[in-house]
């Protein structure tokens, strides 16, 4: 009987197997990378498109604004909306008011906050912990809880019968301290605490008193922290809406946020969207530029005290 021996089946060698495995892993990796970059593209579009659209709308001719389908890239730029808002006295007044209020309230908050933070951050005294708790709680204080009482106090209808400062910038500057002051104290306290003690000690050994140490050593060192805190507080004051809406009723004292929210047309059908977008861009662009310039500092300031590590 003849037995036939069939030739051995070609067996995949280990090298072949490794090759196939690598091919599979490479495809998997490729897919992963593609998805990753898609995700990044999506994040970029999601975060940036609305502002892009506001800019585009602000530069679009009224006649084309209501085109359907909408055009995403304007062929011709219309600057008339920007001309309109910069010729609008109420808007210019609102810009001035916002600037005055924000700068003033931040200046006061920084001055009081810096010395308070120095005490909380570098000195030990009884009641320090309670003060820290109070300050931290105040940073999350709901403004609406005191809206009515503040309204009465602003009009002078309260215990101390102060003059009526309704519809003035002073009212806003003072009430904004509700959130700017605790914020500056809290962030600066963390900042002062993180500063090394050697410089102070050297100065103390040399016989310097606490005021000199503060003015000539700590304050210059704290300058970057003051700038960051001031910037964040400024942004918070600039963006504030509830108090500005409630404590003002004329263009003399209105801030820019209220002005934008009230950019209404004369009739129900008159919707000045392009003008409103132009105003929005003007009000926001400086903020965005500031935030991008001071990115790192802002990120550090935002997470101070919120994340312990």
């Amino acid at each position, binding site marked *: 009987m003849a037995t036939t021996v069939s030739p051995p089946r070609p067996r995949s060698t280990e090298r072949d197997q490794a090759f196939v495995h690598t091919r599979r892993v490479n495809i998997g990796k490729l897919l992963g990378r593609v998805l990753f970059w898609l995700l*990044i593209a999506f994040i970029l579009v999601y975060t940036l498109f609305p502002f892009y659209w506001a800019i585009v709308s602000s530069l679009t001719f009224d006649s084309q604004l209501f085109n359907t*389908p909408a055009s995403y890239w304007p062929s011709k730029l219309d600057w008339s909306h920007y001309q309109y808002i910069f010729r609008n006295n109420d808007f210019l007044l609102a810009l001035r008011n916002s600037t005055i209020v924000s700068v003033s309230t931040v200046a006061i908050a920084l001055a009081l906050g810096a010395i308070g933070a120095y005490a909380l951050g570098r000195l030990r005294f009884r009641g320090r912990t309670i003060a820290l708790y109070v300050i931290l709680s105040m940073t999350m204080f709901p403004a*609406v*809880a005191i809206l009515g009482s503040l309204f009465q106090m602003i009009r002078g209808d309260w215990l101390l019968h102060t003059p009526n400062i309704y519809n003035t910038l002073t009212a806003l500057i003072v009430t904004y301290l509700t959130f700017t*002051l605790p914020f500056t104290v809290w962030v600066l306290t963390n900042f002062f605490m993180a500063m090394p003690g050697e410089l102070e000690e050297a100065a103390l050994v040399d016989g310097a008193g606490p005021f000199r140490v503060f003015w000539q050593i700590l304050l210059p060192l704290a300058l970057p922290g003051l700038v960051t805190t001031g910037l964040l507080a400024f942004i918070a004051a600039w963006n504030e809406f509830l108090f500005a809406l409630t404590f003002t009723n004329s263009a003399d004292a209105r801030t820019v946020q209220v002005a934008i929210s009230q950019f209404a047309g004369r009739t129900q059908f008159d919707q000045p969207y392009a003008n409103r977008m132009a105003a929005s861009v003007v009000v926001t662009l400086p903020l965005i530029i500031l935030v991008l310039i001071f990115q790192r500092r802002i990120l550090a300031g935002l997470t101070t005290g919120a994340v*312990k590590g």
Partner: protein
Amino acid sequence: MSEVGIEVAPLPASTKRGSAWAAPAGAIGRSRERLGWLLILPSLVVVVIVALFPLFETFRLSLTNTRLASAREPRFVGFANYEALLAATSPFWGALRNTLEFTIASVALETILGMIVALVIHSNFKGRGMVRAAILVPWAIPTVVSASMWQWMYHDVFGVINDLLVNRLHILDQKVAWLANPATALPAIIAVDVWKTTPFMALLLLAGLQVIPGDVYEASTVDGANKWQQFWQITLPLIRPALLVALIFRTLDAFRVFDVIYVMKGEASETISLAVLARRELIGNAKLGAGSAISVLIFLCIAALVVLYTRMVRVEEL
């Protein structure tokens, strides 16, 4: 065996974090303490006048029937305002429902999206700085501006969202009146808030991610863990403190929402939040008593969350 007592000297003050003047005894110590109080006093005075006193006033007013800017003598009415507020037909319940829906949905979405964005930025890739800069843009935009922009995007006839969904991508058949339709109004507003605040969550979570040492991941890779396992068993537990702080912070922020709702829908009942309702009663209806009752309730909810938050941050350790 006799006990060997080793006296451990307390650490000298200068090696403690920063402070050079801890616990000097005697007159110098007392004058330092006076100085400390002197420096913090102005800030505390301002806080008392501008925040704590008005808060006390709000509590007091809620027990009266005071009217805003009125010559009528107010009367003490006890809890009458609260009874009216919590009655079945009171607008309070609608506002509470809207506020809770807003808070839960916003915070949940912001946390999930924020986590994704944080993980993306945390991984090393070219252009990472640009992405981190890009996500700061929604954060920097004022809430009123953001509401105005989205209001225009949501326009039922000429808005770009309807244009995209209906004309370009053909996902929907008909344009939707996102804000006018009561069913879609609150979700639409939630989407705006999510857009605006996800960057903040992402940054908080990113800070938490960056504290995790890389060795932990390396060790787990050696043990054969894949990315999914690494996330659930290493990243999430280690990021828990940052996550909790961010959650509490955002929750109490969302609970007092005012700007975005007022700008986009005014006082419409399908979207009215507790804060908008409070203002309507206080200023619109000039009912200082009733409005203050709402304010007190808002404050108590937020206070509970604040207590939770301050315990997490652990002020004593500062």
